[in-house]
Protein backbone atom coordinates (compact mmCIF):
# COMPACT_ATOMS: atom_id res chain seq x y z
CA UNK A 1 0.00 0.00 0.00
CA UNK A 2 1.39 3.37 -0.94
CA UNK A 3 0.58 6.94 -0.05
CA UNK A 4 1.40 6.81 3.66
CA UNK A 5 3.64 9.33 5.39
CA UNK A 6 7.15 8.08 6.16
CA UNK A 7 7.28 6.61 9.65
CA UNK A 8 10.60 5.25 10.80
CA UNK A 9 10.28 1.63 11.86
CA UNK A 10 11.16 1.51 15.50
CA UNK A 11 10.65 -2.24 15.91
CA UNK A 12 13.59 -4.32 14.83
CA UNK A 13 15.59 -1.31 13.70
CA UNK A 14 19.07 -0.86 15.12
CA UNK A 15 18.93 2.90 14.90
CA UNK A 16 15.80 4.96 14.48
CA UNK A 17 15.76 8.73 14.39
CA UNK A 18 12.32 10.25 14.66
CA UNK A 19 11.64 13.82 13.63
CA UNK A 20 15.01 15.10 14.72
CA UNK A 21 15.78 18.82 14.72
CA UNK A 22 19.09 20.53 15.35
CA UNK A 23 19.92 24.19 15.02
CA UNK A 24 23.16 26.04 15.71
CA UNK A 25 23.32 29.65 16.85
CA UNK A 26 25.16 32.01 14.58
CA UNK A 27 26.45 35.39 15.63
CA UNK A 28 23.66 37.60 16.77
CA UNK A 29 23.20 40.73 14.81
CA UNK A 30 24.70 43.41 17.03
CA UNK A 31 22.11 46.08 16.32
CA UNK A 32 18.84 44.24 16.08
CA UNK A 33 19.71 41.54 18.62
CA UNK A 34 18.10 39.12 16.21
CA UNK A 35 18.76 35.52 17.18
CA UNK A 36 19.87 33.79 13.99
CA UNK A 37 20.14 30.04 13.87
CA UNK A 38 21.36 27.62 11.24
CA UNK A 39 18.76 24.93 10.76
CA UNK A 40 21.20 22.11 10.13
CA UNK A 41 18.81 19.19 10.59
CA UNK A 42 15.21 20.14 10.15
CA UNK A 43 12.88 17.30 11.04
CA UNK A 44 14.60 14.16 9.80
CA UNK A 45 13.44 10.61 10.34
CA UNK A 46 15.35 7.54 9.28
CA UNK A 47 16.14 3.98 10.29
CA UNK A 48 19.16 1.75 10.00
CA UNK A 49 18.39 -1.97 10.16
CA UNK A 50 20.93 -4.25 11.89
CA UNK A 51 23.81 -5.32 9.69
CA UNK A 52 22.78 -3.12 6.76
CA UNK A 53 24.13 0.09 5.31
CA UNK A 54 22.13 3.27 5.00
CA UNK A 55 23.80 5.71 2.65
CA UNK A 56 23.20 9.35 3.42
CA UNK A 57 23.92 11.59 0.47
CA UNK A 58 23.65 15.29 -0.17
CA UNK A 59 25.53 18.43 -1.09
CA UNK A 60 28.00 20.09 1.26
CA UNK A 61 26.22 21.91 4.05
CA UNK A 62 22.98 19.94 3.80
CA UNK A 63 23.31 18.68 7.37
CA UNK A 64 24.47 15.14 6.80
CA UNK A 65 27.46 15.34 9.10
CA UNK A 66 25.32 16.93 11.80
CA UNK A 67 22.82 14.12 11.40
CA UNK A 68 25.59 11.53 11.65
CA UNK A 69 26.83 13.04 14.88
CA UNK A 70 23.34 13.28 16.28
CA UNK A 71 22.86 9.57 15.60
CA UNK A 72 25.53 8.60 18.08
CA UNK A 73 24.89 11.42 20.53
CA UNK A 74 28.05 13.36 19.84
CA UNK A 75 25.57 16.19 19.46
CA UNK A 76 22.27 16.58 21.28
CA UNK A 77 19.14 17.17 19.21
CA UNK A 78 16.88 20.16 19.89
CA UNK A 79 13.85 17.92 19.57
CA UNK A 80 12.87 14.55 18.24
CA UNK A 81 14.06 11.20 19.48
CA UNK A 82 16.85 8.76 18.78
CA UNK A 83 16.35 5.09 19.48
CA UNK A 84 19.05 2.48 19.56
CA UNK A 85 17.98 -1.17 19.68
CA UNK A 86 14.54 -0.01 20.73
CA UNK A 87 15.79 2.09 23.68
CA UNK A 88 15.35 5.82 23.69
CA UNK A 89 18.86 7.25 23.98
CA UNK A 90 17.89 10.87 23.29
CA UNK A 91 18.43 12.00 26.86
CA UNK A 92 20.64 9.21 28.11
CA UNK A 93 23.42 10.37 30.47
CA UNK A 94 26.35 9.12 32.47
CA UNK A 95 27.11 5.45 32.81
CA UNK A 96 24.17 4.34 30.66
CA UNK A 97 25.35 6.52 27.80
CA UNK A 98 28.91 5.31 28.21
CA UNK A 99 27.94 1.68 27.92
CA UNK A 100 25.59 2.35 25.00
CA UNK A 101 28.37 4.16 23.22
CA UNK A 102 30.37 0.96 23.07
CA UNK A 103 27.81 -0.19 20.53
CA UNK A 104 28.17 2.81 18.24
CA UNK A 105 31.37 4.17 16.83
CA UNK A 106 32.42 6.66 14.20
CA UNK A 107 34.95 6.94 11.40
CA UNK A 108 35.80 10.52 10.51
CA UNK A 109 36.45 12.29 7.26
CA UNK A 110 39.75 13.91 8.11
CA UNK A 111 42.37 11.26 8.85
CA UNK A 112 44.65 13.96 10.23
CA UNK A 113 42.53 15.61 12.89
CA UNK A 114 40.85 12.37 13.92
CA UNK A 115 43.96 10.82 15.47
CA UNK A 116 45.62 12.35 18.52
CA UNK A 117 49.15 13.26 17.35
CA UNK A 118 50.54 12.67 20.85
CA UNK A 119 49.37 9.09 21.23
CA UNK A 120 50.88 5.91 19.87
CA UNK A 121 48.74 4.08 17.38
CA UNK A 122 48.13 1.14 19.72
CA UNK A 123 46.90 3.49 22.44
CA UNK A 124 44.57 5.18 19.97
CA UNK A 125 43.17 1.86 18.81
CA UNK A 126 42.94 0.42 22.31
CA UNK A 127 41.56 3.44 24.13
CA UNK A 128 38.08 1.91 24.26
CA UNK A 129 39.39 -1.28 25.81
CA UNK A 130 41.24 0.71 28.43
CA UNK A 131 38.27 2.93 29.21
CA UNK A 132 35.93 -0.03 29.58
CA UNK A 133 38.46 -2.15 31.46
CA UNK A 134 38.66 -4.80 28.74
CA UNK A 135 42.41 -4.88 28.19
CA UNK A 136 45.56 -3.11 29.23
CA UNK A 137 49.32 -3.42 29.14
CA UNK A 138 50.62 -6.40 27.23
CA UNK A 139 47.19 -7.72 26.35
CA UNK A 140 46.20 -4.36 24.90
CA UNK A 141 49.36 -4.28 22.81
CA UNK A 142 48.73 -7.76 21.43
CA UNK A 143 45.06 -7.18 20.70
CA UNK A 144 45.86 -3.85 19.07
CA UNK A 145 48.46 -5.51 16.91
CA UNK A 146 46.05 -8.20 15.75
CA UNK A 147 43.42 -5.60 14.98
CA UNK A 148 45.87 -3.40 13.11
CA UNK A 149 46.98 -6.33 11.00
CA UNK A 150 43.32 -7.10 10.33
CA UNK A 151 42.77 -3.64 8.84
CA UNK A 152 45.85 -4.01 6.67
CA UNK A 153 48.48 -2.22 8.73
CA UNK A 154 52.01 -3.52 9.28
CA UNK A 155 52.41 -5.44 12.54
CA UNK A 156 54.79 -2.92 14.07
CA UNK A 157 52.45 0.02 13.44
CA UNK A 158 51.20 0.00 17.03
CA UNK A 159 54.39 1.47 18.45
CA UNK A 160 54.46 4.42 16.07
CA UNK A 161 52.78 7.79 16.04
CA UNK A 162 50.05 8.79 13.58
CA UNK A 163 52.21 11.26 11.67
CA UNK A 164 54.39 8.41 10.46
CA UNK A 165 51.55 7.17 8.24
CA UNK A 166 49.84 8.27 5.05
CA UNK A 167 46.24 9.43 4.82
CA UNK A 168 44.97 6.00 3.73
CA UNK A 169 46.85 4.23 6.51
CA UNK A 170 45.60 6.74 9.04
CA UNK A 171 42.08 6.02 7.89
CA UNK A 172 42.75 2.33 8.49
CA UNK A 173 43.83 3.21 12.03
CA UNK A 174 40.59 5.17 12.44
CA UNK A 175 38.64 2.14 11.25
CA UNK A 176 40.52 -0.14 13.63
CA UNK A 177 39.60 2.20 16.47
CA UNK A 178 35.97 2.18 15.42
CA UNK A 179 35.68 -1.60 15.33
CA UNK A 180 37.81 -2.28 18.42
CA UNK A 181 34.77 -2.43 20.69
CA UNK A 182 32.80 -4.62 18.23
CA UNK A 183 30.04 -2.05 17.82
CA UNK A 184 26.69 -2.77 16.22
CA UNK A 185 26.61 0.56 14.42
CA UNK A 186 29.44 2.44 12.77
CA UNK A 187 28.82 5.94 11.53
CA UNK A 188 31.14 6.57 8.61
CA UNK A 189 31.26 10.31 8.06
CA UNK A 190 32.72 10.80 4.57
CA UNK A 191 35.38 8.19 5.35
CA UNK A 192 36.99 8.29 1.91
CA UNK A 193 36.43 11.89 0.81
CA UNK A 194 39.89 13.00 1.86
CA UNK A 195 41.68 10.16 0.09
CA UNK A 196 43.03 9.54 -3.39
CA UNK A 197 40.71 7.61 -5.66
CA UNK A 198 42.92 4.51 -5.68
CA UNK A 199 43.06 4.50 -1.89
CA UNK A 200 39.32 5.14 -1.71
CA UNK A 201 38.58 1.78 -3.27
CA UNK A 202 40.85 -0.03 -0.81
CA UNK A 203 39.20 1.61 2.17
CA UNK A 204 35.70 0.98 0.84
CA UNK A 205 36.51 -2.69 0.33
CA UNK A 206 37.97 -2.89 3.81
CA UNK A 207 34.78 -1.41 5.24
CA UNK A 208 32.70 -3.95 3.32
CA UNK A 209 34.85 -6.90 4.38
CA UNK A 210 34.66 -5.84 7.99
CA UNK A 211 30.92 -5.51 7.77
CA UNK A 212 30.65 -9.09 6.52
CA UNK A 213 32.96 -10.33 9.23
CA UNK A 214 31.53 -8.44 12.20
CA UNK A 215 27.97 -7.91 10.99
CA UNK A 216 27.70 -4.27 12.01
CA UNK A 217 25.43 -1.70 10.40
CA UNK A 218 26.75 1.43 8.73
CA UNK A 219 25.30 4.88 8.55
CA UNK A 220 27.43 5.91 5.62
CA UNK A 221 27.62 9.61 4.88
CA UNK A 222 29.02 10.84 1.59
CA UNK A 223 28.52 13.44 -1.07
CA UNK A 224 29.86 11.03 -3.67
CA UNK A 225 27.06 9.12 -5.37
CA UNK A 226 29.37 6.45 -6.74
CA UNK A 227 30.63 5.68 -3.26
CA UNK A 228 27.09 5.61 -1.90
CA UNK A 229 25.95 3.24 -4.61
CA UNK A 230 28.91 0.97 -3.95
CA UNK A 231 28.22 0.50 -0.25
CA UNK A 232 24.53 1.14 0.45
CA UNK A 233 21.57 -1.15 0.94
CA UNK A 234 19.26 1.82 1.33
CA UNK A 235 19.78 5.49 0.58
CA UNK A 236 18.47 8.74 2.02
CA UNK A 237 18.97 11.92 0.02
CA UNK A 238 19.25 15.12 2.04
CA UNK A 239 18.81 18.71 0.96
CA UNK A 240 18.99 21.67 3.33
CA UNK A 241 18.37 19.67 6.47
CA UNK A 242 15.53 17.56 5.14
CA UNK A 243 15.28 14.11 3.60
CA UNK A 244 14.04 14.49 0.01
CA UNK A 245 13.89 10.85 -0.93
CA UNK A 246 14.64 7.51 0.62
CA UNK A 247 14.37 3.92 -0.51
CA UNK A 248 16.33 0.81 -1.42
CA UNK A 249 19.59 1.70 -3.13
CA UNK A 250 19.03 -0.40 -6.25
CA UNK A 251 15.60 1.15 -6.91
CA UNK A 252 16.72 4.66 -6.15
CA UNK A 253 19.68 4.53 -8.49
CA UNK A 254 17.69 2.77 -11.24
CA UNK A 255 14.77 5.14 -11.10
CA UNK A 256 15.17 8.28 -9.00
CA UNK A 257 11.81 9.82 -8.16
CA UNK A 258 12.42 13.18 -6.56
CA UNK A 259 13.51 15.94 -8.94
CA UNK A 260 16.49 16.66 -6.68
CA UNK A 261 17.64 13.05 -6.77
CA UNK A 262 17.14 13.01 -10.52
CA UNK A 263 19.28 16.08 -11.01
CA UNK A 264 21.97 14.68 -8.70
CA UNK A 265 22.13 11.39 -10.56
CA UNK A 266 22.18 13.08 -13.93
CA UNK A 267 25.31 14.91 -12.87
CA UNK A 268 27.21 11.62 -12.64
CA UNK A 269 27.12 10.19 -16.17
CA UNK A 270 28.28 6.69 -15.42
CA UNK A 271 25.53 6.20 -12.90
CA UNK A 272 22.59 6.64 -15.21
CA UNK A 273 21.81 3.12 -16.40
CA UNK A 274 19.43 4.58 -18.91
CA UNK A 275 21.21 7.56 -20.42
CA UNK A 276 19.17 10.55 -19.55
CA UNK A 277 19.41 14.20 -20.26
CA UNK A 278 21.61 16.20 -17.95
CA UNK A 279 19.54 18.25 -15.53
CA UNK A 280 21.52 21.33 -14.64
CA UNK A 281 20.58 23.00 -11.39
CA UNK A 282 20.70 26.74 -11.41
CA UNK A 283 21.84 28.82 -8.47
CA UNK A 284 23.46 28.02 -5.20
CA UNK A 285 22.14 26.02 -2.29
CA UNK A 286 20.10 28.55 -0.24
CA UNK A 287 21.27 29.62 3.19
CA UNK A 288 20.22 27.25 5.96
CA UNK A 289 19.78 30.29 8.20
CA UNK A 290 16.75 31.35 6.19
CA UNK A 291 15.65 28.34 4.16
CA UNK A 292 13.03 29.01 1.48
CA UNK A 293 9.40 28.54 2.49
CA UNK A 294 7.42 25.60 1.19
CA UNK A 295 9.53 22.97 -0.46
CA UNK A 296 13.21 23.58 0.34
CA UNK A 297 14.14 22.73 -3.19
CA UNK A 298 11.65 24.86 -5.11
CA UNK A 299 14.10 27.70 -5.77
CA UNK A 300 16.20 25.41 -7.95
CA UNK A 301 13.67 22.82 -9.06
CA UNK A 302 12.86 22.39 -12.75
CA UNK A 303 9.41 21.10 -11.85
CA UNK A 304 8.48 23.82 -9.37
CA UNK A 305 4.98 25.25 -9.46
CA UNK A 306 3.25 27.88 -7.38
CA UNK A 307 2.25 25.63 -4.51
CA UNK A 308 5.82 24.45 -4.01
CA UNK A 309 6.70 27.85 -2.57
CA UNK A 310 3.79 27.65 -0.13
CA UNK A 311 3.33 24.11 1.09
CA UNK A 312 6.17 21.96 2.35
CA UNK A 313 5.70 18.46 0.93
CA UNK A 314 5.87 15.56 3.37
CA UNK A 315 7.98 12.51 2.86
CA UNK A 316 5.35 10.02 1.71
CA UNK A 317 5.35 6.60 0.16
CA UNK A 318 5.06 6.93 -3.60
CA UNK A 319 5.85 3.35 -4.52
CA UNK A 320 6.34 0.24 -2.45
CA UNK A 321 9.11 0.97 0.05
CA UNK A 322 10.01 4.22 -1.67
CA UNK A 323 9.45 7.65 -0.19
CA UNK A 324 9.77 11.10 -1.71
CA UNK A 325 8.99 14.60 -0.46
CA UNK A 326 7.51 16.16 -3.58
CA UNK A 327 4.01 17.27 -4.56
CA UNK A 328 4.33 15.97 -8.09
CA UNK A 329 5.79 12.50 -7.75
Amino acid at each position, binding site marked *: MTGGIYRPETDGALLAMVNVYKTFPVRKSFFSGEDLRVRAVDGVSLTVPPGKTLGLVGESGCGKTTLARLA*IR*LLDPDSGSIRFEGNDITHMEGEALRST*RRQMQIVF*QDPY*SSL*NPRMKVRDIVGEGWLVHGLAKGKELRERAQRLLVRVGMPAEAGGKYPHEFSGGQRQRIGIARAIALSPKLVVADEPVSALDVSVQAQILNLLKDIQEEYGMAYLFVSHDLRVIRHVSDAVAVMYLGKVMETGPAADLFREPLHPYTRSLLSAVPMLGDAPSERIVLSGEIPSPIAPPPGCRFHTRCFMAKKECAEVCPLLREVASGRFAACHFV
Partner: protein
Amino acid sequence: MSGSRVIGRDFARRLLRNRLAAAGGAVILFFFLVSALPGLFASHEPNRIDIVNILRPPSGAHPLGTDDLGRDVLARVVYGARVSLKVGFVAVGIATALGLFVGLLSGFYGGWVDAVLMRFVDMMLCFPTFFLILSVIAFLEPSIWNIMAVIGLTGWMGVARLVRAETLSLKERDFVAAARAQGAGDARIIFRHVLPNTLAPILVAATLGVAGAILTESALSFLGIGVQPPTPSWGNILTTGKDNIEFAWWLSLFPGLAILVTVLGYNLLGEGIRDAADPRLKGR
Protein backbone atom coordinates in the same frame (compact mmCIF):
# COMPACT_ATOMS: atom_id res chain seq x y z
CA MET B 1 50.66 18.33 9.46
CA SER B 2 53.64 19.57 11.38
CA GLY B 3 51.68 19.96 14.60
CA SER B 4 52.12 16.28 15.19
CA ARG B 5 55.89 16.38 15.39
CA VAL B 6 56.41 19.33 17.64
CA ILE B 7 58.52 17.50 20.18
CA GLY B 8 60.43 15.07 18.04
CA ARG B 9 63.68 14.58 16.21
CA ASP B 10 62.73 17.17 13.59
CA PHE B 11 62.04 19.64 16.33
CA ALA B 12 65.44 19.15 17.93
CA ARG B 13 67.15 19.45 14.55
CA ARG B 14 65.33 22.67 13.69
CA LEU B 15 66.11 24.07 17.12
CA LEU B 16 69.82 23.31 16.90
CA ARG B 17 70.08 24.71 13.40
CA ASN B 18 68.85 28.03 14.79
CA ARG B 19 72.19 29.45 15.93
CA LEU B 20 70.74 32.09 18.21
CA ALA B 21 68.54 29.56 19.97
CA ALA B 22 71.44 27.15 20.31
CA ALA B 23 73.56 29.95 21.80
CA GLY B 24 70.74 30.77 24.22
CA GLY B 25 70.52 27.13 25.19
CA ALA B 26 74.28 26.98 25.73
CA VAL B 27 74.17 30.02 28.03
CA ILE B 28 71.40 28.42 30.08
CA LEU B 29 73.27 25.14 30.27
CA PHE B 30 76.36 26.99 31.41
CA PHE B 31 74.49 28.71 34.23
CA PHE B 32 72.93 25.39 35.21
CA LEU B 33 76.39 23.97 35.52
CA VAL B 34 77.51 26.99 37.53
CA SER B 35 74.64 26.54 39.99
CA ALA B 36 75.16 22.82 40.28
CA LEU B 37 78.91 23.00 40.86
CA PRO B 38 79.72 26.47 42.22
CA GLY B 39 82.96 25.23 43.80
CA LEU B 40 84.30 24.61 40.32
CA PHE B 41 83.94 28.24 39.27
CA ALA B 42 84.69 30.15 42.46
CA SER B 43 87.55 29.46 44.81
CA HIS B 44 86.36 31.82 47.58
CA GLU B 45 83.48 31.57 50.02
CA PRO B 46 80.70 33.97 48.94
CA ASN B 47 80.14 35.22 52.49
CA ARG B 48 83.69 35.40 53.78
CA ILE B 49 84.29 38.96 54.92
CA ASP B 50 87.80 40.32 54.45
CA ILE B 51 88.02 43.82 55.90
CA VAL B 52 91.56 44.33 54.63
CA ASN B 53 90.60 43.90 50.98
CA ILE B 54 87.46 45.94 50.49
CA LEU B 55 86.49 47.26 47.06
CA ARG B 56 89.54 45.82 45.33
CA PRO B 57 89.44 45.95 41.53
CA PRO B 58 89.67 42.70 39.54
CA SER B 59 92.97 40.94 40.08
CA GLY B 60 94.50 37.49 40.06
CA ALA B 61 93.21 36.66 43.53
CA HIS B 62 89.78 38.15 42.90
CA PRO B 63 89.06 37.95 39.15
CA LEU B 64 85.94 40.11 39.47
CA GLY B 65 87.15 42.17 42.41
CA THR B 66 85.72 42.45 45.93
CA ASP B 67 82.75 44.28 47.42
CA ASP B 68 82.42 46.74 50.29
CA LEU B 69 82.94 43.97 52.84
CA GLY B 70 85.84 42.42 50.97
CA ARG B 71 83.75 39.49 49.69
CA ASP B 72 84.77 37.94 46.40
CA VAL B 73 82.41 39.17 43.65
CA LEU B 74 83.00 36.15 41.44
CA ALA B 75 81.93 33.84 44.25
CA ARG B 76 78.86 35.97 44.95
CA VAL B 77 77.84 36.06 41.28
CA VAL B 78 78.38 32.31 41.00
CA TYR B 79 76.31 31.52 44.10
CA GLY B 80 73.76 34.12 43.02
CA ALA B 81 73.15 32.13 39.84
CA ARG B 82 71.54 29.47 41.97
CA VAL B 83 69.06 31.96 43.40
CA SER B 84 68.15 33.26 39.96
CA LEU B 85 67.62 29.80 38.53
CA LYS B 86 65.60 28.66 41.52
CA VAL B 87 63.39 31.73 41.41
CA GLY B 88 62.98 31.45 37.65
CA PHE B 89 61.95 27.82 37.67
CA VAL B 90 59.83 27.69 40.79
CA ALA B 91 57.96 30.89 39.98
CA VAL B 92 57.33 29.83 36.41
CA GLY B 93 56.38 26.36 37.62
CA ILE B 94 53.72 27.85 39.88
CA ALA B 95 52.52 30.19 37.14
CA THR B 96 52.37 27.43 34.53
CA ALA B 97 50.55 25.00 36.80
CA LEU B 98 47.98 27.62 37.75
CA GLY B 99 47.63 28.82 34.17
CA LEU B 100 47.16 25.28 32.92
CA PHE B 101 44.52 24.56 35.52
CA VAL B 102 42.53 27.72 34.86
CA GLY B 103 42.97 27.57 31.09
CA LEU B 104 41.95 23.93 30.75
CA LEU B 105 38.92 24.39 32.97
CA SER B 106 37.88 27.56 31.22
CA GLY B 107 38.37 26.35 27.67
CA PHE B 108 36.98 22.87 28.17
CA TYR B 109 33.82 23.65 30.09
CA GLY B 110 33.06 27.08 28.62
CA GLY B 111 29.83 28.76 29.67
CA TRP B 112 29.74 30.44 33.07
CA VAL B 113 32.92 28.69 34.25
CA ASP B 114 34.73 30.33 31.36
CA ALA B 115 33.07 33.68 31.91
CA VAL B 116 33.93 33.80 35.63
CA LEU B 117 37.52 32.61 35.22
CA MET B 118 38.29 34.88 32.29
CA ARG B 119 36.87 37.94 34.04
CA PHE B 120 39.11 37.04 36.97
CA VAL B 121 42.05 36.90 34.57
CA ASP B 122 41.11 40.33 33.20
CA MET B 123 40.97 41.63 36.74
CA MET B 124 44.39 40.23 37.59
CA LEU B 125 45.82 41.77 34.44
CA CYS B 126 44.54 45.18 35.49
CA PHE B 127 46.91 45.30 38.46
CA PRO B 128 50.35 46.69 37.71
CA THR B 129 52.11 43.45 38.63
CA PHE B 130 55.25 44.97 40.03
CA PHE B 131 53.40 47.22 42.45
CA LEU B 132 51.19 44.34 43.46
CA ILE B 133 54.29 42.32 44.26
CA LEU B 134 55.78 45.28 46.14
CA SER B 135 52.73 45.67 48.34
CA VAL B 136 52.37 41.95 48.98
CA ILE B 137 56.03 41.64 49.92
CA ALA B 138 55.67 44.67 52.20
CA PHE B 139 53.19 42.70 54.29
CA LEU B 140 55.05 39.41 54.15
CA GLU B 141 58.55 38.67 55.25
CA PRO B 142 60.87 39.22 52.32
CA SER B 143 62.27 35.77 51.63
CA ILE B 144 63.14 33.87 48.50
CA TRP B 145 60.15 31.57 48.98
CA ASN B 146 57.71 34.43 49.28
CA ILE B 147 59.25 36.03 46.21
CA MET B 148 58.81 32.87 44.17
CA ALA B 149 55.25 32.40 45.32
CA VAL B 150 54.28 36.00 44.61
CA ILE B 151 55.92 36.09 41.18
CA GLY B 152 54.19 32.80 40.35
CA LEU B 153 50.80 33.91 41.59
CA THR B 154 50.90 37.11 39.54
CA GLY B 155 52.27 35.59 36.36
CA TRP B 156 49.83 32.85 35.39
CA MET B 157 47.31 34.86 33.38
CA GLY B 158 49.14 34.72 30.09
CA VAL B 159 49.47 30.95 30.30
CA ALA B 160 45.80 30.64 31.23
CA ARG B 161 44.72 32.58 28.15
CA LEU B 162 47.04 30.62 25.93
CA VAL B 163 45.87 27.27 27.24
CA ARG B 164 42.25 28.32 27.03
CA ALA B 165 42.61 29.29 23.38
CA GLU B 166 44.36 26.02 22.55
CA THR B 167 41.75 24.03 24.46
CA LEU B 168 38.90 25.74 22.65
CA SER B 169 40.28 24.59 19.33
CA LEU B 170 41.45 21.16 20.50
CA LYS B 171 38.16 20.13 22.04
CA GLU B 172 36.47 20.46 18.66
CA ARG B 173 38.91 18.12 16.97
CA ASP B 174 37.70 14.78 15.74
CA PHE B 175 40.02 12.82 17.98
CA VAL B 176 38.25 14.26 21.00
CA ALA B 177 34.89 13.26 19.53
CA ALA B 178 36.33 9.80 18.87
CA ALA B 179 37.48 9.53 22.49
CA ARG B 180 33.98 10.48 23.63
CA ALA B 181 32.51 7.84 21.38
CA GLN B 182 34.90 5.31 22.93
CA GLY B 183 33.43 6.16 26.31
CA ALA B 184 36.23 8.36 27.68
CA GLY B 185 35.24 10.73 30.47
CA ASP B 186 36.09 14.42 30.85
CA ALA B 187 39.19 13.78 32.95
CA ARG B 188 40.65 11.37 30.43
CA ILE B 189 39.90 13.70 27.52
CA ILE B 190 41.45 16.67 29.29
CA PHE B 191 44.61 14.91 30.43
CA ARG B 192 45.18 12.46 27.59
CA HIS B 193 43.90 14.37 24.59
CA VAL B 194 43.89 18.10 25.28
CA LEU B 195 46.76 18.73 27.69
CA PRO B 196 49.54 16.97 25.75
CA ASN B 197 48.65 18.96 22.66
CA THR B 198 48.97 22.30 24.45
CA LEU B 199 52.51 21.65 25.64
CA ALA B 200 54.43 23.26 22.76
CA PRO B 201 53.06 26.80 23.19
CA ILE B 202 53.31 26.39 26.97
CA LEU B 203 56.96 25.49 26.69
CA VAL B 204 57.56 28.72 24.76
CA ALA B 205 55.62 30.79 27.27
CA ALA B 206 57.41 29.14 30.20
CA THR B 207 60.86 29.71 28.75
CA LEU B 208 60.12 33.38 28.16
CA GLY B 209 58.51 33.49 31.59
CA VAL B 210 61.71 32.34 33.29
CA ALA B 211 63.48 35.38 31.87
CA GLY B 212 60.77 37.65 33.23
CA ALA B 213 60.86 36.02 36.65
CA ILE B 214 64.63 36.39 36.89
CA LEU B 215 64.32 40.08 36.05
CA THR B 216 61.57 40.59 38.61
CA GLU B 217 63.58 38.84 41.31
CA SER B 218 66.64 40.95 40.51
CA ALA B 219 64.60 44.11 40.68
CA LEU B 220 63.05 43.14 44.01
CA SER B 221 66.40 42.18 45.47
CA PHE B 222 67.89 45.40 44.17
CA LEU B 223 65.19 47.31 46.04
CA GLY B 224 66.04 45.35 49.17
CA ILE B 225 62.77 43.47 49.48
CA GLY B 226 63.87 40.33 47.67
CA VAL B 227 66.57 37.94 48.66
CA GLN B 228 68.04 39.22 51.92
CA PRO B 229 71.75 39.67 52.47
CA PRO B 230 74.04 37.98 53.21
CA THR B 231 72.57 35.43 50.76
CA PRO B 232 73.95 36.60 47.40
CA SER B 233 71.63 37.35 44.54
CA TRP B 234 72.41 39.25 41.37
CA GLY B 235 69.92 41.89 42.40
CA ASN B 236 71.35 42.57 45.86
CA ILE B 237 74.94 42.62 44.59
CA LEU B 238 73.77 45.40 42.29
CA THR B 239 72.50 47.32 45.31
CA THR B 240 76.01 47.37 46.75
CA GLY B 241 77.23 48.29 43.31
CA LYS B 242 74.92 51.28 43.18
CA ASP B 243 76.25 52.60 46.49
CA ASN B 244 79.80 52.43 45.22
CA ILE B 245 79.31 53.07 41.52
CA GLU B 246 81.81 55.96 41.34
CA PHE B 247 84.80 53.93 42.48
CA ALA B 248 83.88 50.23 42.01
CA TRP B 249 82.48 49.69 38.52
CA TRP B 250 83.11 45.92 38.74
CA LEU B 251 80.51 45.61 41.47
CA SER B 252 77.76 46.72 39.08
CA LEU B 253 79.05 45.44 35.78
CA PHE B 254 79.44 41.72 36.46
CA PRO B 255 76.11 40.91 38.16
CA GLY B 256 74.46 43.15 35.56
CA LEU B 257 76.10 41.20 32.78
CA ALA B 258 75.05 37.93 34.37
CA ILE B 259 71.42 39.09 34.40
CA LEU B 260 71.64 40.38 30.84
CA VAL B 261 73.19 37.23 29.43
CA THR B 262 70.84 34.86 31.25
CA VAL B 263 67.69 36.74 30.33
CA LEU B 264 68.88 37.03 26.75
CA GLY B 265 69.60 33.29 26.73
CA TYR B 266 66.09 32.38 27.85
CA ASN B 267 64.51 34.78 25.39
CA LEU B 268 66.54 33.44 22.48
CA LEU B 269 65.79 29.85 23.43
CA GLY B 270 62.09 30.59 23.88
CA GLU B 271 61.85 32.23 20.48
CA GLY B 272 63.84 29.37 18.98
CA ILE B 273 61.41 26.85 20.42
CA ARG B 274 58.53 28.82 18.98
CA ASP B 275 60.08 28.87 15.52
CA ALA B 276 61.05 25.22 15.65
CA ALA B 277 57.61 24.16 16.83
CA ASP B 278 55.89 26.01 14.04
CA PRO B 279 58.05 26.28 10.94
CA ARG B 280 55.41 28.39 9.23
CA LEU B 281 56.32 31.28 11.52
CA LYS B 282 59.94 31.22 10.39
CA GLY B 283 61.28 34.52 9.24
CA ARG B 284 58.47 36.61 10.58
